[in-house]
């Protein structure tokens, strides 16, 4: 991620440019120029022609403004769209959108014979195919797409590794089959099936899946009279240069009147969840599944029988929000984290007023010229390390264990994939081994969330340093 995916950098550049214009008060008069500036001479180009490039950039800008690309009017002017974004009172209920102009419309996932095929005498491919879909003609094997069932046996059988699998990356990344092709071959996301894990965002090599950002509304709110309080997820460590206290200081410098650690709420979640677990065990419940990952909570609803096992303990964000409301009545609360599904949790619980990803926070820093590495450290409360540990896989189970409950047998689901969802289905039938199932949708934990700035590897070096 990051450096090796230019689509990610392109999105960040647009976020920075939009945030800068919004901050300077020129969004509604200058935004129209953005696709032209970003296609000026000397800029890299990715598409067939500059017109297509601009059309896609325009759609990306619309997503950054918080609009659904699927519903846009082709003729909408960016300056007008900016006015609309500036006036918007809340985000869309479904936070993802597909930039169909950018979507390549990849051919359906399939196996194909490459020109490495030697037309050998063995005919291993043909002989391995349960469907009789392979013919060898003119010294070369070919697969009949009509009858092929994508089993992949021919690929394994070929002694020359001449058969390859061409996936549809976004569909392959989706653990719940929510991403499928529409009649035009472009991808669409089923909002009812989608669990908002955000895997498709990073998986698409064309950057066609985007989040509808709320960044313009937050820039506006920062200039309003009503005070703002930031609730910052513990995964923020390493997302920016400088220490944790400096990152908090930089957020404070943006104009938030207070900056709270969600880790504080995480301590409450752990304590509450430990009690819930102990009660469940006493009354013969097979296991308790954690509930702090909103993508998992969404996914759990589609697993028959799982509902009875998912913890009803509020998430760290919710606990942190309640404390912040008491401390600052009347303030607007902004959750800052790496998570797409939190956008929806925020709407569903109505506990916070807006969600900002780390990428979007970075855009605000750049727009305001705030150097995080030079920022004045913000005084952080002393915490037990367990709350911050929620950001990493294993951290929630560790925090529950640290409350002193006995007999805990944790099972860690480190990343929601088709495979791990199958294991969770086994659990729902009461056939699992562990009695506390910690589920995190992202491999590695929240530090791997779709709205992160740096790779997990870099984030973890910061964690190691801070722990010393």
């Amino acid at each position, binding site marked *: 991620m*990051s*450096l090796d995916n230019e689509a990610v*950098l392109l999105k*960040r*550049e647009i976020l*920075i440019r939009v945030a800068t214009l919004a901050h300077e008060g020129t969004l509604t008069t200058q935004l129209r120029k953005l696709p032209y500036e970003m296609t*000026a*001479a*000397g*800029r890299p180009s990715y598409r067939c022609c500059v017109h297509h490039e601009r059309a896609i950039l325009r759609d990306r800008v619309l997503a950054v403004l918080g609009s659904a690309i699927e519903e846009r009017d082709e003729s909408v002017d960016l300056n007008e769209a900016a006015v609309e974004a500036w006036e918007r009172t809340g985000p869309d209920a479904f936070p993802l959108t597909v930039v169909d102009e950018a979507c390549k419309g990849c051919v359906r996932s399939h196996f194909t014979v490459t020109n490495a095929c030697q037309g050998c005498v063995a005919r291993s491919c043909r002989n391995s195919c349960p469907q009789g879909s392979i013919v060898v003609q003119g010294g070369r094997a070919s697969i009949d797409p009509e009858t092929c069932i994508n089993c992949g046996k021919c690929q394994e059988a070929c002694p020359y590794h001449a058969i390859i699998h061409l996936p549809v990356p976004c569909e392959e990344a989706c653990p719940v089959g929510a991403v499928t092709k529409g009649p035009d071959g472009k991808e669409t996301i089923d909002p009812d099936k989608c669990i908002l894990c955000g895997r498709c965002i990073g998986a698409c090599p064309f950057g066609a899946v985007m989040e509808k950002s709320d960044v313009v509304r937050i820039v506006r709110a920062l200039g309003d009279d009503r005070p703002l309080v930031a609730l910052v997820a513990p995964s923020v460590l*390493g*997302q*920016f*240069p400088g220490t944790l206290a400096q990152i908090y200081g*930089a957020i404070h410098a943006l104009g938030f009147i207070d900056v709270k650690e969600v880790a504080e709420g995480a301590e409450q979640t752990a304590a509450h969840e430990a009690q819930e677990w102990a009660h469940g065990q006493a009354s013969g419940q097979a296991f308790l599944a954690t509930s702090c990952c909103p993508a998992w909570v969404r996914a759990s609803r589609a697993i028959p029988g799982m509902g009875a096992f998912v913890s009803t303990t509020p998430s760290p964000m919710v606990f942190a929000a309640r404390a912040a409301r008491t401390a600052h009545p009347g303030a607007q609360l902004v959750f800052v984290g790496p998570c797409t599904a939190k956008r929806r949790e925020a709407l569903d619980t109505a506990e916070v007023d807006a969600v900002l990803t780390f*990428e979007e926070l*970075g*855009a605000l*820093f*750049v727009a305001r010229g*705030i*150097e*995080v*590495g*030079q920022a004045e450290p913000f005084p952080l409360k002393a915490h037990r390390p367990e709350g911050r540990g929620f950001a990493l896989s294993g951290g929630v189970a560790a925090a529950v264990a640290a409350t002193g409950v006995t007999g805990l047998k944790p099972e860690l689901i480190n990343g929601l994939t088709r495979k791990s969802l199958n294991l969770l289905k086994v659990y729902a039938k009461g056939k699992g081994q562990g009695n506390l199932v910690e589920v995190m949708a992202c491999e590695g934990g929240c530090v791997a969330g779709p709205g992160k*700035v*740096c*790779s997990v*590897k*870099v984030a973890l*070096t910061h964690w190691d340093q801070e722990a010393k």
Partner: protein
Amino acid sequence: MNDKRRVISEVEVKAMDRISVRVCSGTTCYVLGGSELMDLARTLPPGWRDRVQVEGAPCLDLCRSPGQARPPFVKVGDRVVAEASVEKVVAALRELLA
């Protein structure tokens, strides 16, 4: 006593000869991909360790200058590497060390 003095001066000479690599850790560079350069020092070939001095630097002021060069920036000696990646920095160093 004499021996010791000789060793120290050798170290000093080496330090002077070292090529300085300054990785920008300003916010703009960091957010636009520079984060991945933070462990650059560890990824360099071991044989270069005493010939190259890698350090983080506050904003190099290149992100604010007009022109087409894009972040993240790394300064290798006097040379500016734009859109820097580990591979690009290694290539620049290889030329200087050759």
